[in-house]
């Protein structure tokens, strides 16, 4: 067995299923094309938080990438419900949730963190930003907090938004 660190390449990404929850057709096109070019094996698209929640239960994705602002259910509420579905019953209660948003303010990032978002990416999206966020998500063990009505990353942790170029 080789002791070389595992490479974040198409061979690895082929094993992953990613759920994209996004209402903008242009953004959907961009994300699905970028994920396909990484080699991600299976990409499922949902148009809003409500459909995203249904797809989370039916598809059991390894990662969710979601927009923030959508109607009728936004990405924050979808995240809250996934984290509230907690231990045991949910499709994959430990699923990492990456939020991509045009809102860069501290209060938006803190609100996303409080709902259980794993990582927060500020638009405009770059290839580097998405790739690095996904690699960080898949390669690091996470420490979850579990209470009777929440299971997810600690809402008290510091969450810094990722931006292109930093």
């Amino acid at each position, binding site marked *: 067995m080789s002791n070389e660190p*595992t490479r974040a*390449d198409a061979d690895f990404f082929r094993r992953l299923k990613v759920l994209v929850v996004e209402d903008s057709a*242009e953004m959907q096109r961009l994300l699905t*094309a970028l994920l396909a070019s990484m080699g991600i094996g299976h990409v499922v698209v949902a148009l809003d938080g409500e459909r995203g929640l249904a797809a989370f239960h039916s598809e059991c994705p390894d990662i969710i990438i979601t927009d923030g602002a959508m109607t009728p259910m936004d990405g924050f509420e979808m995240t809250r419900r996934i984290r509230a579905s907690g231990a045991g019953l949910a499709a994959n209660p430990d699923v990492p949730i990456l939020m991509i948003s045009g809102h860069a303010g501290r209060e938006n990032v803190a609100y996303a963190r409080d709902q259980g978002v794993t990582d927060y990416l500020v638009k405009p999206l770059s290839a*580097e930003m998405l790739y*690095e966020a996904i690699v960080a998500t898949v390669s690091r063990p996470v420490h979850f907090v579990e209470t009777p009505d929440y299971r997810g990353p600690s809402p008290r942790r510091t969450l810094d938004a990722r931006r292109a170029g930093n």
Partner: protein
Amino acid sequence: MEQRNITSRLAGRDAVTGETPPDVRFIRVPSIAERKLGADYVAPMRLDPRVLDQMQSTIRTLETKYAEALSAQISMLQLLVEPSAKGDTEARSRLYSLSHDMRGLAGTFGFPLVGRFADSLCRYIEHCDDEDWRDGSVLRFHVDAIRDAIDNPGTDPAITMETLNALERLIKATRGNRKMAG
């Protein structure tokens, strides 16, 4: 999966100083790589420049299509300003939706100035009341700035900053004047 009932630094500042309530557990969830590859996974995971090249090439491929779509969207923005000012709620919603898309995507596809003006427009609309819409001047200036940014992509960044500052001053002035009048 390890489960423990002791406090964790990862749980945040409050957790290290206080008692953990009995119904709170801290759980180490193995990484996806650990779960998918088992013993074959050797951390830390290495970035692969070939993947990044492929992703960047994908963006370049989509750029041409996006530039065409963007031009059509800006023309649509220009058409939507007048009906929005006359109270057409459908036009207002469409105008916001288009500028929201531009804010999110224009920077990715090499139009950062469009993205910045669209961001300013979105932030303005998010706090717009009916009078702001009916006045329409701030909307018009933003849409003109967006059109100018795509027509003159080599504009001096100092001019762009000045335009953004001027838009900011215009927003403050129009809202300030209304407060004084009201």
